[in-house]
């Protein structure tokens, strides 16, 4: 019989996960003899918690959150890293007169928490800007998952993902000419985003490792197909969304943006970004010790 696997996504069903959705829809998992269940996430679902509780076999999460979880005793291991670059940005409307990082102090910045806050704090830490709300530092707001705080003027700068909220900002009439944009990748402050993680002990089981390998192979095939056929991929995403919230237009935009971050040919972890991620986390004492065995190449090696 097919190997049953459950994949817990980091967020709601959207084109950020197009590869997996397409692979499932196109039967790539069936071809690899994998019976995959995809669980959508949401703002209150911590994938790390789900996998620790045994609710999933594989999760999609950000490296910082994965390593932090490993540090608190959930032994997560990265088995593949389709996202090579970060989609995270901070945008500030021009009228707020923020043009460089030096202009930040005294302003209010919107940040997502729930495991998404690490890149921001790593960046501020690197720049030496305090985040405690003092006059020489910045005031941090827990931001909702949209661009309302910017429109409402509640925050001077807000966090966006290139493939999602930035699109909302564009729709709302914002753009490069009236926004100051801080792109984490371009600044070299990017931490690794969507990777695939499993529990460490399962890797002792060769049958499991084999199943993971087939899973990753099918997933990468899905990514390739999605990047090649953006329209069809967007449609598949919309059809997979049980909530009926996803719109074709927005998903199409998202596929386009995500394609800039994903490398469909290579699932392997990029060690420079990995090291930078680890260093940033260590600097901030988000993790206490250099992680050991937080990634494995057995799966990606087997793909080659």
């Amino acid at each position, binding site marked *: 019989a097919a190997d049953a696997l459950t994949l817990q996504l980091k967020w709601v069903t959207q084109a950020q996960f197009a590869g997996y959705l397409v692979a499932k829809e196109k039967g790539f998992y069936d071809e690899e003899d994998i019976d995959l269940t995809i669980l959508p996430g949401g703002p209150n679902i911590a994938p790390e918690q789900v996998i*620790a509780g*045994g609710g999933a076999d594989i999760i999609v999460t950000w490296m910082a959150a994965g390593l932090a979880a490993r540090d608190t*005793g959930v032994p997560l291991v990265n088995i593949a890293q389709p996202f090579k670059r970060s989609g995270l940005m901070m945008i500030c409307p021009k009228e707020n007169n923020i043009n460089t990082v030096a202009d930040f102090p005294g302003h209010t910045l919107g940040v997502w928490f*729930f495991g998404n806050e690490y890149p921001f704090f790593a960046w501020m830490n690197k720049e030496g800007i305090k985040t405690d709300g003092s006059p020489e530092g910045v005031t941090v*707001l*827990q931001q*909702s998952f949209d661009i309302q705080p910017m429109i409402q003027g509640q925050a001077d700068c807000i966090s966006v993902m290139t493939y999602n909220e930035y699109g909302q900002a564009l729709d709302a009439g914002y753009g490069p000419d009236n926004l100051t944009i801080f792109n984490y990748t371009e600044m070299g402050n990017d931490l690794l985003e969507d990777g695939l993680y499993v529990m460490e002990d399962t890797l002792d089981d060769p049958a499991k490792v084999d199943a993971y390998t087939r899973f990753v192979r099918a997933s990468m095939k899905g990514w390739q197909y999605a990047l090649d056929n953006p329209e069809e991929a967007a449609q598949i995403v919309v059809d997979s969304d049980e909530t009926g919230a996803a719109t074709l237009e927005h998903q199409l935009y998202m596929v386009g943006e995500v394609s800039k971050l994903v490398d469909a040919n290579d699932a392997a972890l990029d060690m420079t970004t990995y090291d930078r991620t680890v260093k940033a986390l260590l600097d901030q004492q988000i993790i206490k010790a250099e992680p050991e065995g937080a990634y494995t190449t057995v799966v990606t090696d087997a793909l080659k």
Partner: protein
Amino acid sequence: MIFRHRILATLGTLSALLAIVTPEVVLADGAAAPAGRLLLLPIIGLVLAGGIGLLTRWTLWQPLVSLVLLFGSALMLPGAVAGFAGAIGGPAYWQSLIAFWLLTWNFAERLSAAIRDGRLPETGTGVIIPITFGLTLLILWEAITRGANVPPVLLPAPSAIGTQLANSAPILWADFVQTFIKSVIPGYVIGCLAGLVVAIAVDRSPFLKAGLLPIGNFMSALPIIGIAPIMVMWFGFDWQSKAAVVVAMTFFPMLVNTVAGLNAASSIERDLMRTYAASYWQTLLKLRLPAAGPFIFNALKINSTLALIGAIVAEFFGTPVVGMGFRISTGVGRLAIDLVWAEIAVAAVAGSAFYGVLALIERGVTFWHPSVRGGRA
């Protein structure tokens, strides 16, 4: 009554013995076995003595002493059984937990019977029972998380939560001030007052009653979760939006209860007021509001818990980086589940204290109501 006590006592004692005299325990040969077995003997003695003491009842102090003995041994049971290598999570372990539960229940039954008969004073002894129950829950929780090996990221053990509670006191305090003092209290006061005033207005004017009550019901039945993001959009990130959510949340129960309470005065009581040609306000103040007292307190108590939930939930949709709701949501994301539960514990204590104060006031104000007067007319 007494019959049930005996059954409970017998069952408890028997199942405690059963837990000890399992092959698992008796034949255990782990490292801890010899020492553990030594410990078992006095426990068996205690259980037997306590059990016999429970089944015979000569004087007041005698069952009490045996109860304490029994309760003490019950407390030690799971620990002692767990002392055997591999016994954690085994049948003997669970058996001892069941025994523990039965014995504690018996303890509570006995104690409350003694209070009811006047053998023990209400003040002082009265609080022992809920505390015992709480402790029992905590012990069971601890034992189950350990026994069943529940991952701490799903449900941490109370001991871990306690440690976190002690370590993060300043954070917890700041969160408490932000959420409870700044959001809950003003929101609660405004919401309850508004509910009361609207209920009186609605009751006063048939036009409003016909027009506003259905629409008011509709509006205020909005699931607050939904209005939370809207309130954040309208009132900003800080406590004002949370207070607004609390207002919206406490309004409906107060409205419904007060409207019901204002109809609680009996017809002869109203007739009396009619014979005095009492004005509307006089009837309201001297008859209908006092008669509505029990209903209004009902709403106040329900609201005391709703308010806290409302404020915390609203903080999920955007806050400054302080507040109980903020800490809980980010805590889950960071897998700092013990901090989350520490925060929950603070919320529970604060909410219970809030409720308790209201219940005390209620006893004072509606002393005349049969439900408060109780058996003694």
